[in-house]
């Protein structure tokens, strides 16, 4: 969190400028977006800085993996700052540790909005944690961008006009995975292994919508609670149910545990794993120690999953080489994995939105710009769906398969959908990053 250095001096200056801006506004001379000079157009925006904030699980049970996201976003912001910033403003990113506990989130979010006077919330992580503050953030009319959770609850324009999602929601993901199973694995018995919260149940909702709820019997629907790592009984039940395809809405640790549990039982279904739980770097790391005794990397072979961002191993992709370069320069202490890519891609979309809002945005004009400007998906494979009636981010995913050695291969086109609508093929082509890597 280098960007916090010298925060006091900055804050004093910020307060001074905000006060000045208040005076000016009272005289009716502020709010001109087209002018060429920077003004302190909103709380958290000064002539030289933009301050944003986030709450993240940096310690505790949810920290492994997720704690990489905000330093990676910050790395991209530092990259932008080192290349002149956004309209000459440098981004200051405060992110605080809530330990995935809503009680802490409630207090820290107020600290960000009331004390740190952030312009916007960015990338706040977790469903129960962010649900605690979404009403408050909206009541304060603070833009609440790109909640790091695939709950469809963030797409609620009438109640939460300032809140925007980013990743595809889990129901859409479930539907597209279900379609793949119908097309490519038709006729096989399907089982579910899912996390017992909205992540898992929303995913299952999408799967059921596509496959038909009656096609998967209760015995083949096994869930786990993330606080209980003993999942042997569930895997044994899936084996007993005869499922030949197991769709897993699980976090990476539990994907690994499920694979190991299945190996123990000599159970080898085709695993179809949602994006959250299929990061190849993480999984390879978690499984590498089990290479003895005929388990090994073979565990990953044949796994089917989906993605809305390019694959971390695809070094030919210009987005990957851009972000990998930033990773190596700014946060080389973190492993190059899906969480790092996630944080950087989110930061990229934020900078896109900031640019779209013009030189001197207010909080309201910023949200308006996000709703009305057609942002390119940036690194995303599918388009962003932001509009005045939709606050969902990426609208779809692409299916890919993982080989035994960890190589990932895309299969078929990108599909888009919505929670209740049909699945359609996305015909647009992938964008390429701008030359300097800044939108």
């Amino acid at each position: 969190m280098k960007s916090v250095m010298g925060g006091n001096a900055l804050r004093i200056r910020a307060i001074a400028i905000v006060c000045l801006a208040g005076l000016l506004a009272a005289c009716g001379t502020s709010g001109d977006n087209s002018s060429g000079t920077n003004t302190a157009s909103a709380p958290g925006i000064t002539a030289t800085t933009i301050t944003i904030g986030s709450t993240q699980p940096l310690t505790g049970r949810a920290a492994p993996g997720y704690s990489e996201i905000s330093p990676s976003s910050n790395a991209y912001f530092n990259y932008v700052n080192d290349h002149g910033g956004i309209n000459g403003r440098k981004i200051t990113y405060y992110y605080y540790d809530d330990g995935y506990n809503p009680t802490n989130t409630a207090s820290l979010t107020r600290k960000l909005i009331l004390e740190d006077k952030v312009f916007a919330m960015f990338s706040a992580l977790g469903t129960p944690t962010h649900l605690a503050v979404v009403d408050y953030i909206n009541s304060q009319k603070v833009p609440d961008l790109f909640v790091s959770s695939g709950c469809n609850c963030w797409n609620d324009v009438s109640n939460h006009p300032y809140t925007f999602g980013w990743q595809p929601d889990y129901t859409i993901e479930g539907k597209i995975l279900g379609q793949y199973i119908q097309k490519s694995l038709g006729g096989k018995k399907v089982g579910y292994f899912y996390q017992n919260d909205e992540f898992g149940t929303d995913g299952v909702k999408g799967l059921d919508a596509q496959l038909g709820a009656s096609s998967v019997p209760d015995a083949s629907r096994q869930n786990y609670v993330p606080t209980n790592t003993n999942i042997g009984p569930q895997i044994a039940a899936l084996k007993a149910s005869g499922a030949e395809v197991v769709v897993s809405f699980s976090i990476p640790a539990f994907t690994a545990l499920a694979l190991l549990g299945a190996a123990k039982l000599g159970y080898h279904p085709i695993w179809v794993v949602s994006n959250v739980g299929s990061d190849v770097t993480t999984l390879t790391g978690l499984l590498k120690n089990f290479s003895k005794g005929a388990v090994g990397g073979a565990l990953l072979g044949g796994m089917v999953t989906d993605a809305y961002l390019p694959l971390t191993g695809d070094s030919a992709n210009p987005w990957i080489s851009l972000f990998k370069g930033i990773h190596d320069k700014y946060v080389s202490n973190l492993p190059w994995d899906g969480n790092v890519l996630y944080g950087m891609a989110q930061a990229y979309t934020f900078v896109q939105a900031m640019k779209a809002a013009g030189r001197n945005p207010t909080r309201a004009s910023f949200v308006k710009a996000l709703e009305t400007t057609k942002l390119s998906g940036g690194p995303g494979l599918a388009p962003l769906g932001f509009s005045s009636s939709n606050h969902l981010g990426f609208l779809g995913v692409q299916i890919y398969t993982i080989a035994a050695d960890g190589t990932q291969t895309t299969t078929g086109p990108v599909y888009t959908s919505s929670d209740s609508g049909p699945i359609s093929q996305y015909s647009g082509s992938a964008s390429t990053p701008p030359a300097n890597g800044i939108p």
Partner: protein
Amino acid sequence: MSRFFVLTLNGVTQGAIYAAMALALVMIWRATKVINFAQGAMAMFTTYLAVFAIEHGTPYWVGFLVALVSGLLLGAIVERVIVRPVESAPALNVVILTLGLLLFLEALAPMAFGGQIRSFPPAFSIVGLRLGTSQVPFSPFDLFTLGSVVAVMLLLLVLFQKTDLGLRMRASAFNPEVSRLLGIRVGRMLTLGWALASLVGALAGVLIAPSLLLYPTFMDDVLVFGFTGAVLGGLDSAVGAVVGGLLMGFALTYVGGYFGSDLETVGALVILIAVLMVRPSGLFSVQRVRQV
């Protein structure tokens, strides 16, 4: 293969780990009348040391030894440096002290080793043994886990029952003043008690790490259920600790298997309360039952 059979095999390996943790807690309780809430975190830390050694090229068994030896040392250091000074303070203070140590270690581990989830190698294959045509959910590594815990229990039993050192340790715990008069160096005995307990905890850590994966809080649940097992068995009995730990393993697995994994802790609560209402000091206690 019946569901009951599968769950039983699953429960026995879980239970063995809880038993080891319960054993560690009981040893410390008997020596110093302290519930060491940092036991799990200490085991976590020694497991990180083991994986650090293994990732730097040492063979698995050297890493295994690193964990056990560092456990021994860590236990001795904690007793000497942190617990000894508050010997005469109110009992709850030591609880807070060990909680402080727990938080400190859980913060120190990611600082020193990085916060990512890691895998820990098993000593033997984790693929289930073949029984005729079917594969049972019980692997050579599970056998090793169970065997290690039983072996440690037997060794401790021999130590405490058959050796002079064990006698002195028991005497120091039972009555420090009289022991001191008899020329026993009570302080040393207590330190040794903590060290041995911490070694047993470290063993639990390296044994469970392959199946839980390694991260700073990975031993939290093991501590909770180990403690529950110890209470179930009776805190004054080593045999009680092992039986209690195993019972906890079975109970959680059966509840999880038959009623859903989200009810496991509720099952643990019901079983614990039911047992304690009949035997308020655990199954293996010799104290009289209290009346309300």
